[in-house]
């Protein structure tokens, strides 16, 4: 689990294993989130046809993954935590895919 960017502090026996993320990592993630916000606004100023929505979604998803991995420390979490997180998004996917498999096929018309 330990890597070059992580300082591992061993404390008293049985204490939680502390991964102290370097300040630089936090500031770089913040910078990426700010740039992502600016890009989202910038992209929405242009008429990109059918691409406006996918671009906004992709940027928001990248921002969310950055927050989850680094701010929420999931990159250093146990595998069980990963299972819970991946499962929750899997269920979210089921919710959307099955719902739209219905709504998008109700009439012969491209919305």
């Amino acid at each position, binding site marked *: 689990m330990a890597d070059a960017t992580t300082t591992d*502090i061993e*404390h*008293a*026996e*049985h*204490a*939680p*294993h*502390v991964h*102290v*993320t370097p*300040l630089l990592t*936090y*500031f770089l*993630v*913040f910078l990426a*989130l*700010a740039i992502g*916000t600016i890009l*989202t*606004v910038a992209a*929405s100023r*242009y*008429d*990109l046809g059918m691409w*406006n*929505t996918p671009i*906004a*979604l992709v*940027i*928001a998803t990248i*921002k*969310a993954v950055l*927050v*989850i991995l*680094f*701010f*929420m*420390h999931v990159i250093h*979490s*146990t595998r*069980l*935590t990963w299972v*819970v*997180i991946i*499962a*929750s*998004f899997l*269920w*979210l996917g089921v*919710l*959307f895919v099955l*719902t*739209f498999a219905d*709504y*998008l096929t109700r009439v012969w018309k491209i*919305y």
Partner: protein
Amino acid sequence: MSVVTNDPSAHEHHHPFLQHHFEDLGQQHEASTLGMWMFLATEILFFGGVLCAYWIYRVMYPEAWAIGAAQQIWWLGAINTIVLIISSLTMALAVRNAQLGRRMGTVAMLIATLFFGSIFLGVKAYEYTKHWQEGLFPGLAFHWNEVPALAPKVQLFMTFYWTLTGLHALHMVIGAGLLLWFIWRAWAGHFGPEYYGPVEIMGLYWHFVDIVWIFLFPFLYLIHGAHHG
């Protein structure tokens, strides 16, 4: 998994915040992190349900959705996005300070998080007041009628707007209340390298609410395709 012993010395020097049903602080930390993620999984599906309904109608009424988003002041939403990202950074730094045993650093970063969270809610309150005055609150108070044919659909967009931002703001208010409690606990010196789990979990909640807004901002403020006066 260590063997449970009846050795009385094992219980002599345990940490004041180690709950009796955990063997050690490490196990307690992992269990609470996992438990928080289970809760966040239910939150993801909670917001996911409303967002799924939002997308059904966005696909059905694209013009009304674009007009609805055009009623928002996009730069206020952008400022609030940045404000919330800053609050997530200070929250992450609060956890880091707790991990390093920096008591006042933890208190300061938690106060900063509460400060930026409050700015977000203040901007939101201004927007709500403005929408109310412009007749953009669904129901009897709804008076927007620039494009009469689309007015009911724009009202539907505004229903999603108030529901999604309202649920998000409710989470922010709860988060602010939790922060007040955590500022007190950090001040009292409850947290340190051996016991920073609660601050970490407070952070998980705060970052989750930030992530919800990361999606709400483009969904509610930035829909391209509005071609009205």
